[in-house]
């Protein structure tokens, strides 16, 4: 018993402390170093921070270089699958583009109006520049969803900077280095985004699930019944972590064992990202602005508004010309129809005349038939010593008499 315990102790001690000829450090030393590194990396010391930034820069660049072959294979695979659906996608995109173009002008008008109103109430004005950033590392851990972009503190990126794919929200910056930053994707379990569900205007929080969709959480009781399938989810701006009004995804209602679950299908496919936009925001108080700056800003706004109005005018003129063209076509059509109507009227009247003639002829024929049969009864007799009866042929009475088959009806 004692010997087996001794063996165990010897084996453990040997495992921890024994160094082979090539090993420079014992495992016990390295375990303690690991624990020391864990503790140290979480201390907010300047030296540690700079050291971490240095390590991050070096590792991210190395990772990018090492990933080139794998990325090439991945890209080829994606390209091949893209080519198979290329034509259908193109047709769909063309329709979408036409719809979006029409929405664009009205959106810009609203944005400018919004800006103007903010200026009127002396609110702060957000001016933002979107920086184009390339994704250098996107190796998603099975447990954490994040990407590394090639823009850092040098380019004005800050912790919390919003990251977009076109105009869709992708995530926010959680770690910045000098020339690189780490972005926490919306799909990460640790991501929580305050959102508004439109058109019901319901406030909620979207949390990541680890997959390419999010889950709606924390909806006020009773409001969940109002939510419709395919409602639009966009950031509410609550908490000032994310800017308000950024599209996040479309809502999907899942009926799981008679309880409703709400998931959000993100507009952006995070596994296909290559480039993103980082929004660098400058907040400037309206009151602090000097006059030249404000004038400049105003003239810029006015110019933008003018441009939009010109665009709008162009669209209206185009629409008007289309309406005019349509009007002329319609008038021509009406004229043609009127001519056709007149012709039909003529035809109808000639037909009516024929029918009337036919009726008259029919009556005449009937009269002649009856005249042959009953004419002698109605004609005036001119015999001697007989009372004169009947009518003169051709008179109205004679005709009546013949039509009544020789019976004289006194009026």
């Amino acid at each position: 018993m004692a010997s087996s315990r001794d063996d165990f102790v010897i084996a453990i001690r040997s495992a921890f402390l024994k160094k082979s000829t090539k090993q420079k450090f014992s495992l016990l030393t390295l375990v303690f170093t690991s624990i020391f590194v864990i503790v140290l990396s979480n201390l907010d010391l300047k030296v540690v921070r700079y050291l971490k930034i240095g390590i991050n820069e070096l590792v991210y660049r190395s990772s990018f270089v090492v990933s080139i072959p794998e990325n090439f294979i991945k890209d080829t695979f994606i390209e091949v699958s893209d080519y198979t659906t290329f034509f259908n996608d193109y047709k769909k995109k063309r329709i979408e583009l036409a719809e979006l173009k029409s929405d664009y002008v009205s959106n810009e008008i609203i944005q400018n109006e919004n800006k103007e109103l903010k200026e009127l109430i002396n609110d702060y004005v957000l001016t933002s520049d979107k920086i184009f950033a390339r994704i250098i590392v996107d190796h998603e851990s099975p447990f954490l969803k994040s990407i590394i972009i090639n823009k850092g503190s040098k380019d004005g990126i800050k912790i919390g900077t919003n990251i977009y794919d076109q105009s869709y929200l992708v995530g926010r910056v959680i770690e910045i280095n000098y020339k690189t930053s780490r972005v926490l994707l919306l799909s990460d379990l640790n991501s929580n985004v305050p959102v508004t569900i439109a058109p019901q205007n319901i406030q909620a929080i979207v949390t990541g699930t680890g997959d390419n969709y999010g889950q709606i959480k924390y909806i006020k009781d009773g409001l969940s019944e109002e939510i419709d399938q395919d409602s639009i989810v966009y950031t509410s701006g609550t908490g000032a972590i994310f800017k308000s009004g950024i599209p996040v995804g479309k809502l999907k209602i899942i009926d799981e064992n008679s309880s409703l679950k709400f998931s959000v299908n993100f507009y952006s496919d995070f596994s296909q990202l290559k480039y993103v936009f980082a929004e660098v925001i400058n907040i400037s108080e309206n009151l602090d602005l000097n006059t030249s700056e404000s004038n400049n800003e105003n003239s810029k706004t006015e110019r933008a508004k003018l441009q939009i109005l010109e665009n709008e005018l162009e669209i209206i003129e185009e629409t008007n010309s289309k309406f005019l063209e349509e009007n002329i076509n319609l008038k021509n059509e009406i004229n043609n129809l009127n001519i056709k109507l007149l012709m039909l009227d003529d035809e109808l009247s000639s037909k009516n005349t024929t029918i009337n003639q036919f009726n008259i002829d029919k009556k005449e024929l009937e009269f002649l038939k009856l005249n042959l049969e009953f004419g002698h009864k109605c004609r005036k007799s001119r015999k001697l010593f007989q009372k004169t009866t009947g009518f003169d042929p051709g008179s109205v009475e004679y005709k009546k008499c013949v039509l009544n088959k020789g019976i004289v009806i006194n009026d």
Partner: protein
Amino acid sequence: MISFKSKGFFSKFYSWLPIFVLYVSVLNEFDINYLNLDFFSFNFPFILIFYFTLKDFKNFDYLLVFFAGLINDTVVGLPLGISSLSFMIICIATSYFRNITIRPNQAKDWFYFLFIIILVNSLNYSILTLFFSYNLILWGYVVNIFFTFIFYLFFITIFRFYLKGLND
């Protein structure tokens, strides 16, 4: 079969290949999941470290493994030192297992590996959730352990070929 008669650059490179592959795998985080299967993942560095430290491979320096852990943490975005600690625990476990084993058996190694990856991942999960308040999918860890366990046999077959090539 690969064999090296001379001790040139390629021979040296071949003898350092496991460490090189370890660094590539931590920098690349490859998991061959191009089909985007849900939860599918496996931990290749665990297999590599377990096998070569169990075989007491001469060029598999613990210090280099420690640095590989630091790189892994940086790439994945975990607190610095977590993966190093996990890798070191695997090294200790294999060192202990080597000390107590008289007749090596592949099946025993395989199940011991399962025990070790469960232990390491549990520790990893506990540290991240308890001390760093990370939200993690436990189910994801379970699947990761399962596939790492399954792929072990496949990879050690390749490693055995590698060692044979080195000994020849």
